[in-house]
C-alpha cells in the first residue's frame, strides 16, 4: 500500500492525513489500531498503558458505524459502554445532541444522525488515541462544531488524534501527513 512513511504525534496534537482517494489513509488508521498487519516497520506508543495494546487505547470511528438498527439510540450506546468497560451514556448522548432521539430505534435515524450516534462513542469513555476516518461526512454545521469541541477537549486533556479528512481542521498546530506525496516519492 505504501512504504517509507514516518510520523510522530505528540500528546495534545492532531495529525491530519491527507491524500487522494485510495492513497491508504484508512489503511494507515486500521494499521495503527492493529486491525491490519504491518508488513515492515513499527509503531510505538510512549507513556501508554503497558498491559493494553495500542488498539485497546484507541477509539476508532470509521465509515461503518457499528450501529444496530433494531436497538434504540440509547441501547446502542449502553451496549458499547458495557462492552468497552464503562462510560457515561448520558454524556455521550449530550455530546451530539441525541438526547431527544434516545428512545428512537436507530433504524429511523437519518444518515447524519447515525453518524452522530457513531461518533458519540468517542465521548463515552476516555481513550488516549482517537483514530477518525472521514469524521465530518454528513454532519451539519452545528454537529461539526460539536465534533470540533469534542476533539479540542480531548486534545487539551492530553489525548492525541489522527484524522483522515479533506476538510481544513480548525486547530492550531495541526500537522499534515500527505500520503499522496509519500507514495509518489
Amino acid at each position, binding site marked *: 500500500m505504501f512504504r517509507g512513511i514516518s510520523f510522530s504525534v505528540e500528546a495534545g496534537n492532531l495529525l491530519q492525513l491527507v491524500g487522494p482517494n485510495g492513497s491508504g489513509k484508512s489503511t494507515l488508521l486500521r494499521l495503527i489500531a492493529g*486491525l491490519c498487519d504491518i508488513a515492515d516497520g513499527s509503531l510505538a506508543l510512549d507513556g501508554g498503558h503497558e498491559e493494553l495494546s495500542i488498539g485497546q487505547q484507541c477509539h476508532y470511528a*470509521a*465509515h461503518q458505524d*457499528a450501529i444496530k438498527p*433494531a*436497538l434504540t439510540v440509547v441501547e446502542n450506546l449502553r451496549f458499547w459502554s458495557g*462492552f*468497552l468497560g464503562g462510560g457515561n451514556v448520558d454524556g455521550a448522548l449530550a455530546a451530539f445532541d441525541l438526547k431527544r432521539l434516545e428512545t428512537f430505534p436507530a433504524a429511523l435515524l437519518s444518515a447524519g444522525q447515525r453518524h452522530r450516534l457513531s461518533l458519540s*462513542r468517542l465521548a463515552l469513555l476516555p481513550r488516549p488515541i482517537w483514530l477518525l476516518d472521514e469524521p465530518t461526512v454528513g454532519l451539519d454545521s452545528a454537529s461539526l462544531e460539536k465534533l470540533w469541541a469534542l476533539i479540542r477537549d480531548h486534545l487539551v486533556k492530553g489525548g492525541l488524534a489522527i484524522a483522515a479528512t479533506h476538510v481544513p481542521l480548525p486547530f492550531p498546530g495541526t500537522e499534515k501527513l500527505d500520503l499522496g506525496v509519500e507514495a509518489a516519492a
Partner: protein
Amino acid sequence: MSILWALIRRDLTLAIRQGGGVGTALGFFLTFVVLLPLGLGPDQALLQRLAPGALWVALLLSVLLSASTLFQQDYEDGSLDVMALGAAPLELVALAKSAAHWLSAGLPLAIAAPLLGFLLNLNPAGIWPLAISMITGSLALSLIASIGAAVTVGLRRGGLLVSLLVLPLYVPVLIFGVSASAGGPQIATAALLILLALALVSLVLAPLAAAAALRAYLK
C-alpha cells in the same frame, strides 16, 4: 464478565426484536416436524422408531441454518472492528456470541423438541433423555457452527460453505445425541457423557478457532 454479559444481552435483544436467523430456525424446525409424519404416512410404530433421530436431524439443521450468519452483521456494520479494540479478546466475543445463539435458538428448540415429539409419536419414556441430550448437544452445535460462521464471515453467500465445513464436525454430536436419547439405559448414559465431553471440548476450542478466523478476516 460484565463485558460478556453486555454482548449476550445485546444479541438476545436483537434475536427477539429482529427474529431473523433465530426465527428461521424455529420455523424450519416446526415445519420439519409437522411435515415429516405427513410424508411418512400413518405407520405409528415406524414414526415412534424414527422420532428421536428425526428430531435430532431437525435440531442440527435448524442450528446450522441460523448460526451460519452469526458474525455477519457485526462484520458488515463495523461492530467487529470496534469489538477487536475492546478490553475483551475476540475469543470471548466468539464465546459470548455462541452462548447468545445457544440461548436464543438451541435451548428453546431443545426444550420444545420433546413436546413437538408428540407429533411424531415419540415414546413418553424417551422425553427426558431426549430433552437432556438435546440441551447438552445443542450447546456443542452452536459452538461448532460459530467456527463455520467465522471462517466464512467475509463471504456474501457463505451458507453452502458453512454447511460443508461444519457438517463433518456435527456427525459425532448427532451419533452420540441419538444414542443418548434412544439407546438402552447403559448406552444412553455412556453416550450422554460423551456428548457432554463433546460440548465441553467445543466450549474450549470453538471460540479459539472462531477468533483466529475473525482476526484473519479483519486483517
